[in-house]
């Protein structure tokens, strides 16, 4: 049985088309449709309910040591309010999940994980914890809203004071408020645009949702569903767990080497990654040059040679063409290379391009 987010009724009322995702019932789109919602985020602003994301607290004298051991990124220089992205590996170097760690204060961290992995991650942390530390799954207490787009900050300024807004990307202000509602304001997102994510008491989610939509009416803010969330992250080439990586795919193969600090003393999976050496396959971008849309799990060919499979693929509204990401043999990743994907028995031509597909101009 799927869970509902605190905004479920509001989505139904707004004409949201509800689908199951990651164990939750969420709107894939509202009345405007995926393309208009996508374009709103690229050109104005969009509001997403991402309350399905899981939140786990990591607290205690050995909190940092636990994070350093369980996660591939380095956290020993994180300042209060700063956030950092990291994969979490298993002993074989495969990816248990990818997540974001916020440092609230010394010995007090706030971790945001993927909805579908929430129970698995929490159990993983309990199984591997050591010393003086407590992990607490607080997912049900928190709602999460994402306000994204070039007008997002302007809209946010209407409902909160300047000092409550983090100045830099991947920074957050804890214990603040917006629209009079206590929340965490984090300058993060999953769209490739400017914007924030707000964490708040799930009981006040609807109040915040309504307040933000009202504040952004002039700027053209509209609610956006999972469909646009996926096409936006695709254009920005952001990996999605279960697609670009999973328990069998290492973060190095998924192109997440920037978040794997092999120089750290130790972390779970480090030895396996060392033994594997350079990754045998790598994540690449494909721009479709033929007719058709290449979706996930399609075989990719260089001539007659099968070089890998796609991990995600869709039509990208802002770019106006279909793109895909794929895991392919490491010797076949040169941008400009012409390849073909097998789309339901038909070969569709594509070209390897460098990632991301879309990068916003600052």
């Amino acid at each position, binding site marked *: 049985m799927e869970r509902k987010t605190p905004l479920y009724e509001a989505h139904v009322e707004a004409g949201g088309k509800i689908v199951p995702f990651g164990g939750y019932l969420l709107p894939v789109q509202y009345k405007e449709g995926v393309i208009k919602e996508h374009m709103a985020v690229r050109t104005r602003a969009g509001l997403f309910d991402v309350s399905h994301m899981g939140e786990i607290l990591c607290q205690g004298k050995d909190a940092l040591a636990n994070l350093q051991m369980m996660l591939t990124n380095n956290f020993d220089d994180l300042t209060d309010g700063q956030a950092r992205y990291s994969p979490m590996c298993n002993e074989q170097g495969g990816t248990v999940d990818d997540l974001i760690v916020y440092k609230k204060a010394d010995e007090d961290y706030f971790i945001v994980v993927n909805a579908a992995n929430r129970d698995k991650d929490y159990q993983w942390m309990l199984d591997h914890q050591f010393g003086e530390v407590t992990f607490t799954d607080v997912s049900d207490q928190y709602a999460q809203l994402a306000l994204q787009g070039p007008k997002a900050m302007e809209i946010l300024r209407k409902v909160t004071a300047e000092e409550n807004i983090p100045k830099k990307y991947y920074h957050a202000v804890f214990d603040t408020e917006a629209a009079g509602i206590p929340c965490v304001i984090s300058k993060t997102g999953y769209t490739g645009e400017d914007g924030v994510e707000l964490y708040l008491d799930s009981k006040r989610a609807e109040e915040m949702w309504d307040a933000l939509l009202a504040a952004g009416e002039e700027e053209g803010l509209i609610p956006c569903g999972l*469909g646009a969330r*996926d096409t936006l992250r695709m254009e920005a080439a952001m990996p999605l767990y279960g697609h670009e990586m999973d328990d069998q795919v290492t973060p190095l193969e998924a192109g997440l080497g920037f978040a794997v600090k092999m120089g750290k003393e130790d972390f779970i999976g480090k030895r396996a990654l060392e033994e594997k050496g350079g990754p045998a396959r790598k994540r690449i971008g494909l721009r479709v040059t033929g*007719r058709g849309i290449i979706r996930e799990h399609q075989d990719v060919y260089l001539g007659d040679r099968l070089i890998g499979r796609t991990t995600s693929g869709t*039509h990208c509204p802002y770019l106006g063409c279909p793109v895909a990401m794929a895991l392919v043999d490491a010797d076949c990743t040169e941008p400009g290379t012409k390849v073909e994907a097998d789309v339901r028995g038909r070969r569709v031509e594509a070209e390897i391009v460098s990632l991301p597909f879309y990068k916003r101009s600052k």
Partner: protein
Amino acid sequence: MELREGLLYSRSHEWVKEEGDEVLIGLTDYAQSELGDLVFVNLPEEGDEVATGESFADVESVKAVSDVYSPVTGVVSAVNEELLDAPESINEAPYDAWFVRVKDISDREELLTAAEYEAFVESEKDA
């Protein structure tokens, strides 16, 4: 949901317009609204044979690919190639956006009137 009088409807959400011995086939308004923004269409070629209950085309929305089924058995006599460059016209005007014209019809499934189709969609929604 918009319906057009004078058309016949299939349970797989295609519409059929009879023109003499031939028919035009398209997707209903309900189908396009369920599929969402369409961004790609694959059509058969003139002269291809289509068969009752079998897929003759596919449409892709941003999210997924869906088959379009033929309510008749016959031979494609014309293809609406304008859809290839403008798949969004299926969303905008589903009853004008015909996919194919079919001739030499030898079989057809039991089709519904507008009122029957409306009742069918309602019953599917409740299911």
